[in-house]
């Protein structure tokens, strides 16, 4: 009887959308029927999505990988006795950690993602889990906040506001009820890092939220998760329950005299609820209409109480900062952009997936070295970075350094790190029209420039497309569109109306030819 060999089959939304569940089920059946010397762990995804379903296997020299092992290949895969003759199998990829896509990354926040069983607290603890919390439990609230401030961590949701300053404001607010609110309403197209982290390393977010609670004196946290992520909800709720059973949530967290608990709340398909004040309204059971600022949520937030509002990745970055000290994190990155950002490669790229890198590389590196060019094989023409409110960048801007300030300098933004590539078949006038249409569908309706401006914008673009033969009218319409963009930028209450013009302006500026002939 030979020793049992451990296999890893990811349980992650994208892996499952490519058949990971049925592959795992077929393997399990074969193991039972043929009494194979194998067992299966459902891990998270490594984020090498073009290779999913990616099956890993323990060996005495570390983990090796096979992929993509799709449903139609799994029978042959089992029949090949891959566990005995691994290197001969056509889907063999070698040691997982040596796959260049993974090897070239700097995985800090995503260090455990794909490595562990997301629902095993033992796995979590065996891989540095709760070390940050232990450190925090031995520190004063002020020292925790100072540690986060010194790390240089900025909000990863898109706005990049310094996390330590936000926390300091909440800490300095008079004591009483305070809240930690995690924004998991990841609505930007081309982004999936929140989803991945919550599915593949949920305890990391839980730990980050507990630390935030200790830092500012809050004993209750809310996670606002989008309805569009059903598997994430399932996994995360299970993780919260497990953390509670193991004493990491509740009256005496990790046997200390501190109290903290969490509640998951679901959104209902409104993009605007990713805006922090709109999210607060939604959590309070109201229409997701944005609130004017001030007062800042740090002073008067959820249910009128001082609240820390952070994105999933921001909070998930905190445990390693506390465990290893601020300097280690601070050493990654450039200028005022410290640490790492999990970039998400999406759209028309050959090698899509999650790439965590220190700030400071170039977009070109992501597109070519990691992304491998377009999936369709046609020349790449435009890249939208930072979600639907981010600018479209032409090839001449792909050398821009990946840091917050460099992107701002070209009227673009890194945002939440989503990178969506388009090939030459893209019609940039159509894309600009969509930006405005999306704004008109998702606007909360509170301010006029956003609510009405977006509708007028769609109409103006339609007019441009209809008047291509009358140059004078076309030029007038384009002028009108530019003025409308100015009004929306200057007059909107929040980033929805205020930044929708970014993709529109960039399309006009860099791809003017698409606004000439109707295609």
């Amino acid at each position, binding site marked *: 009887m030979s020793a049992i060999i451990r296999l890893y089959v990811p349980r992650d939304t994208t892996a499952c959308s490519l058949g990971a569940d049925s592959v795992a089920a077929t393997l399990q059946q074969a193991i039972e029927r043929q009494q194979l010397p194998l067992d299966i762990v459902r891990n998270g995804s490594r984020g090498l999505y073009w290779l999913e379903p990616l099956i890993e296997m323990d060996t005495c020299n570390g983990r090796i990988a096979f992929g993509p092992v799709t449903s139609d290949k799994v029978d042959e895969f089992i029949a090949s006795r891959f566990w005995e003759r691994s290197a001969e199998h056509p889907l063999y990829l070698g040691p997982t950690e040596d796959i260049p896509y993974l090897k070239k990354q700097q995985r800090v926040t995503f260090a455990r993602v794909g490595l562990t069983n997301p629902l095993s607290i033992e796995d979590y603890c065996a891989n540095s889990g709760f070390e940050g919390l232990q450190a925090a439990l031995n520190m004063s609230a002020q020292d925790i906040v100072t540690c986060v401030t010194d790390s240089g961590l900025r909000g990863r949701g898109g706005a990049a506001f310094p996390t330590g300053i936000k926390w300091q404001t909440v800490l300095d607010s008079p004591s009483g009820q305070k809240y930690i609110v995690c924004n998991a309403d990841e609505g930007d197209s081309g982004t*999936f890092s929140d989803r991945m982290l919550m599915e593949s390393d949920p305890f990391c977010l839980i730990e980050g939220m507990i630390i935030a609670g200790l830092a500012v004196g809050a004993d209750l946290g809310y996670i606002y998760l989008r309805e569009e992520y059903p598997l994430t909800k399932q996994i995360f709720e299970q993780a919260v329950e497990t953390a509670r059973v193991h004493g990491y949530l509740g009256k005496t967290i990790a046997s200390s005299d501190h109290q903290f608990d969490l509640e998951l709340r679901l959104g*209902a398909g409104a993009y605007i609820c990713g805006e922090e004040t709109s999210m607060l309204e939604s959590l309070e059971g109201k229409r997701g209409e944005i609130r004017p600022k001030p007062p800042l949520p740090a002073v008067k937030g959820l249910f009128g109480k001082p609240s820390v509002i952070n994105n999933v990745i921001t909070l998930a970055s905190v445990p390693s900062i506390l465990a290893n000290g601020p300097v280690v994190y601070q050493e990654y990155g450039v200028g005022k952009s410290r640490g790492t950002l999990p970039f998400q490669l999406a759209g028309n790229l050959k090698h899509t997936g999650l790439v965590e890198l220190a700030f400071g590389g170039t977009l070109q590196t992501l597109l070519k070295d990691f992304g491998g060019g377009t999936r369709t094989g046609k020349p790449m023409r435009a890249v939208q970075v930072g979600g639907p409110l981010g600018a479209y960048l032409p090839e001449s801007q792909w050398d821009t350094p990946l840091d917050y300030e460099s992107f701002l300098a070209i009227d673009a933004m890194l945002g939440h790190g989503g990178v969506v590539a388009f090939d030459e078949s893209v019609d940039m006038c159509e894309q600009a029209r969509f930006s405005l249409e999306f704004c008109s569908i998702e606007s909360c309706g509170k301010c006029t420039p956003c609510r009405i401006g977006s509708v007028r914008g769609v109409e103006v673009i339609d007019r441009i497309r209809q008047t291509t033969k009358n140059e004078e009218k076309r030029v007038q319409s384009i002028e009108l569109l530019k003025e409308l963009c100015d009004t929306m930028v200057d007059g909107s209450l929040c980033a929805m109306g205020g930044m929708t013009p970014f993709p529109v302006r960039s399309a006009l500026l860099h791809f003017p030819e698409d606004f000439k002939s109707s295609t």
Partner: protein
Amino acid sequence: MNKTSHQQSGHTKLVVDIVEELKLEQGALLPILHGIQDELGYVPTESVPFIADSLNLSRAEVHGVISFYHYFRSSPPGRYTVQICRAESCQAMGSRVMENYAKELLGIDFHETTADGEVTLLPVYCLGNCACSPSVRVGNEIFSHVDKIRFDAIVASLGHQPVEVT
């Protein structure tokens, strides 16, 4: 008629149970609406006055919340809800063509249900599956790389007969 009133009284008890269970939570309205829609597939208009009373809100406020969120609906959906992602990453991989094909195949537009009551077609703006665009969601299942052929296969797996386009 009898059946309808039976159904309504069944609904009423269910709504009462959900509201009673959740009404003391902070910000209870969204959890209550989710609870009702999880069970019934929609939030019946008849339930609005009761929800409003229980939470000390006006009917207009409850209606305002239901109508604000794309996800909540006031009428029953078809047996299957098919969501097609319309966002940029899926556009970059050909979702516009697939979207038009889907509408033609099912003979309906977004927010409509096929005449046999089987399929409701909805747009969605991102399923977080952007690494494998275009994406489609049916119930809680998400599908990757959906082109015309894969969309055909998804619809066939639901047992729905496509309409004859003449």
